[in-house]
């Protein structure tokens, strides 16, 4: 035990943050880890049930439509690719907003936040359309109209997991949009200008990127595999 040596100036010596971040950002990181475990549990549950089930519907057959598509259109993954693209672009605009915040450039923060919010809303709109479309085909919690790869009747767990997990993710996107709207209002009211920093936007940005990252996993598990 080196009790006799003084440790001023050391990173972990106390009196300062070892990661050089304020507590809110640290809490956000730990919250995201916690949330990652929530999604992880969902996706592992999904995997467990899926791989202990004999057959599973083919995503290329289930997700093959898009808005205003002609009857019987067969465009697998086109619509969800657009959704994913929108969400990833919204992450880019979020990065730009955070960057503008570093430069104390209020105008650019506002523009990029608005774009991010629009991206989030567009994604939610797409998801609403897709849910509505699947619902019109008879899919819902406890109802699965889609057949397995081999043409046999599938268990309802395909739709059960799809609606639960994409719904839980959609709820995260929705709360992210709300957070971003609050950030926008605070920016417009010069709250951050007065504080002298745009740290809150950085924390909101962490959350938004996390939600995007989760979507990559959800997308892979439900649409690709």
């Amino acid at each position: 035990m080196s009790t006799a040596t003084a440790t001023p100036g050391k990173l972990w010596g106390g009196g300062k943050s070892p990661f050089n971040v304020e507590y809110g950002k640290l809490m956000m990181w730990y919250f995201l880890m916690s949330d990652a475990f929530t999604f992880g549990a969902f996706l592992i549950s999904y995997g467990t049930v899926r791989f202990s089930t004999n057959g599973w519907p083919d995503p290329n057959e289930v997700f093959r439509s898009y808005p205003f598509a002609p009857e019987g259109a067969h465009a697998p993954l086109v619509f969800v690719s657009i959704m994913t693209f929108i969400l990833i672009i919204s992450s880019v605009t979020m990065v730009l907003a955070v960057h503008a915040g570093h430069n104390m450039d209020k105008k650019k923060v506002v523009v990029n936040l608005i774009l991010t919010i629009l991206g989030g809303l567009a994604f939610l709109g797409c998801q609403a359309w897709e849910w509505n479309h699947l619902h019109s085909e008879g899919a819902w919690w406890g109802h699965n109209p889609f057949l397995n790869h081999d043409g046999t009747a599938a268990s309802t767990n395909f739709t059960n997991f799809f609606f639960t997990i994409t719904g839980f993710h959609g709820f995260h996107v929705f709360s992210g949009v709300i957070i971003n709207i609050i950030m926008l209002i605070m920016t417009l009211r010069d709250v951050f200008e007065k504080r002298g920093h745009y740290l809150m936007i950085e924390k909101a940005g962490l959350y938004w990127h996390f939600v995007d990252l989760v979507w990559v996993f959800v997308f892979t598990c439900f649409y690709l595999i």
Partner: protein
Amino acid sequence: MSNEAVLHAHSGVATHEVHGDHHHEHHHHETFITKYVFSQDHKMIAKQFLITGMVWAVIGGLMSVLFRLQLGYPESTFPWLEDLLGKWAKGGRITPEAYYALVTTHGTVLVFFVLTAGLSGTFANFLIPLQVGARDMASPFLNMLSYWFFFLASVVMLSSIFVETGPFSGGWTAYPPLSALGAASPGSKTGMDLWIISMALFVVSSLLGGLNYIATILNMRTKGMSMTRMPLTIWALFFTAVLGVLSFPVLFSGFILLIFDRNFGTSFYLSDIFIAGQGALPNEGGSAILYQHLFWFLGHPEVYIILLPAMGMVSEILSVNSRKPIFGYMAMVGSLFAIAILAFLVWAHHMFVTGLNPFLGSIFVLLTLLIAVPSAIKVFNWLTTLWRGNIRFTPGMMFAIGFVSLFISGGLTGIWLGNSALDIHLHDTYFVIAHFHIVMGVASMFGMFAGIYHWFPKMYGRYLNNTLGYVHFWVTMIGAYLIFWPMHYEGLAGMPRRYYDYSSWESFKQFIELNRFISTVAMIVFAVQLLFLFNFFYSIFKGRKVKTQNPWGSNTLEWTTPIRPGHGNWPGEIPEVHRWAYDYGKDGKEFIPQTTPVGADESHH
């Protein structure tokens, strides 16, 4: 804060009694509401957690007395039970439904509300800012929310006891299908809905608290308080918070799937189920085992969430009252870390007999038995800390030593249960009940009592009564062993847990007298806890006043605050730390507080 305030704080407690803590009120005005109800002071929030936890301990303990009455006297009737429980004890005998509801609620309440919120909620809130040298938690507001989410969870859980169909009665683990199908039992109806809402609120509370504890410990340590100078309490509370933040979300996912199974016609956990009177259910393709995996991924870390704070406080109290440095500080930190990691890798040892792949089982046996290594390191370090110490047998110290005894007794049976082959015989018997009550339940209660007796002077500026404390300790200590030791024999004889009436089985008739003995002791031990409660509340108002700033001669920072610290903890500057927390008996000095600069001629060790 001015020097005057410091002087005032030292000038005697009597003035405080009259004027309250007005010396720090030129910061902000406090009303009754902001000081006692929606308080953002970590010390007040800690007291709120503690007293709410005590209320739950009484409720949960009383429940165990009621079902022990049934187990001890299965043939007798008690008319007063009908007065108390109404239709749940028709004719003075607890009904089977009520029995299961009591067992379930007892487990849920004691595990989550008393030993999680009541233990780490209390002491993480109270000790973290005081011992790392911070004015308050990183976010006092979220800290307040954490308590109020717990309060809401409490209200919902309490209300579930009063609904017509009764509280949930499918065991504290809430396995489906009993938890997923309302038709499965009366308690699976509204009672289960309320149970799950309450637990969801509890998860939120625990998350908000845990994030705060982590951020405070990492970010808000005072100057000089490096990680390796922190008292072991703080290390233990840190790992506890990390365990909570990473394991509760998995339980939360499990609950969400359960809610869908209950209300929205899904079959995540359900497959091929036949209900008497209803016929076959349409649910197909789900897996009840999936829930068990999700539950125990929290459930196992949860036992360490309960145990680690007790371990941390016991380490501190043993060292202070042995007047010796803790033996093997870094080994203590390392074993806490090892336990925190292993906690996530052993959950399936609760599931050996569910049809788990035997190969997977053997891996979980290995990982489970590995926990014996850090646990043994801790035990040896506690014993060597006591070895040739100048021991002061304060009530807090008695409970700390009691903790070590219970941890050894209960931990050794864990080695039996961790073997999948032995577990085939012992699973779901009273052997398991005995094991986890001793090692997790009673031991952690002892850690909590040790903490309360030790830090009560800091919390309330008064001492608890020692005589009552010793009575409390000895009756609880002897009682705990008399209650749970015989259960090992019952379990080895194959007596299953959760049965309503053992007298109808020829093989268990031999235990009728023993069960009656256990029930009698349980009632005596419960009565002694009421004595403790009396001591607690009496001493808050009438106890012997604390006259010195550092009554235990302790090194840690909480004893450098005024006897009754206000919001902000230290009038004036936050103290700077120059050494670790365990310089007891060094260089001929009895103790050297952490704030004392290292002398030029001081020895290394």
